[in-house]
């Protein structure tokens, strides 16, 4: 494993999805990929995600779009409004994949998009790319 010297060795990742199954699968994929993510935080909706970011330093947010209470687009907008989180990495993990939605996400300044259903390899590659990790399983 090699890690650029200007990046932290471990990463804090926040998984935001109303599906506990999807959160578990992503968490398992991160662990199996050998990405040193400690801790991994979880949130079941966008509002809970915004609350986590108020109290924790997060390197990467993996965000679903269609969630109760607050969806991923609104949560992304609120996160970006906070100066301290303006540049936090946000990757959308969603089944919504119309060209219009992708364009909307680009305008929100997200760093990536993973289309559901995803493979573990897609999760691994995107996380490594966004965080600048170069791990090999």
């Amino acid at each position, binding site marked *: 494993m090699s890690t650029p010297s200007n990046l932290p060795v471990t990463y804090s990742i926040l998984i935001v999805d*109303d*599906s*506990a*199954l*999807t959160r*578990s*699968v992503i968490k*398992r994929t991160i662990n199996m990929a050998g990405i040193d993510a400690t801790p991994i935080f979880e949130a079941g909706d966008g509002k809970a995600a915004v609350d986590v970011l108020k109290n924790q330093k997060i390197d990467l947010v993996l965000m679903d779009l*269609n*969630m*109760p209470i607050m969806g991923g687009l609104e949560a992304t907008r609120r996160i970006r409004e906070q100066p301290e989180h303006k540049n936090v990495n946000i990757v959308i993990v*969603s*089944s*919504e*994949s*119309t*060209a*219009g*939605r*992708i*364009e*909307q*996400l*680009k305008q929100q300044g997200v760093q*990536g*998009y993973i*289309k*559901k*259903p*995803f*493979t573990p390899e897609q999760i691994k590659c995107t996380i490594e790319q966004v965080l600048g990790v170069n791990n090999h399983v």
Partner: protein
Amino acid sequence: MSNITAEPRVELTCPESVKGLLEEKTIGALQTMAFFCTDPTDSGALSPEDAVLISMGFTGTSSGTVELVAGKYFGQRLASNALGCGPTDEEALTQADDSIRELVNVVVGMMMPRLAIEPGELFALTLPSTRAFEEGEWESFIAAPGVAILDAEGDTLALRIIR
């Protein structure tokens, strides 16, 4: 960002196209989510035991509600395959209902580009909702035009779109 590949548009007024779209996206979702080999089956399939009906609406230039009927044990198998545990393990039991809802969420999301008239079109999606499904509802459910009936390694699923 991933590129979007243009696929032929499906009209909700064409039952055969709707059936084909439901089959294609559900089979693909199950293969990727949980390594299920799923095949279309005939209308003589029996109602799943201990079944639930999951509904999820979409609104745009095409609007409707996708409904899926599946047995609770299928949810356990879906969760167990996705999580790499046994179907009767605690994790699979607690995430069985959630796994079927997530399947519907994924299938609906995958279908939207095929229902859009313009490439830039946005759809509003509801959250998946669940209710118990009575065995007596099965015959009328599968009699609907455009219904897709699938065999997921021994478990029967049925999907349709209500306009």
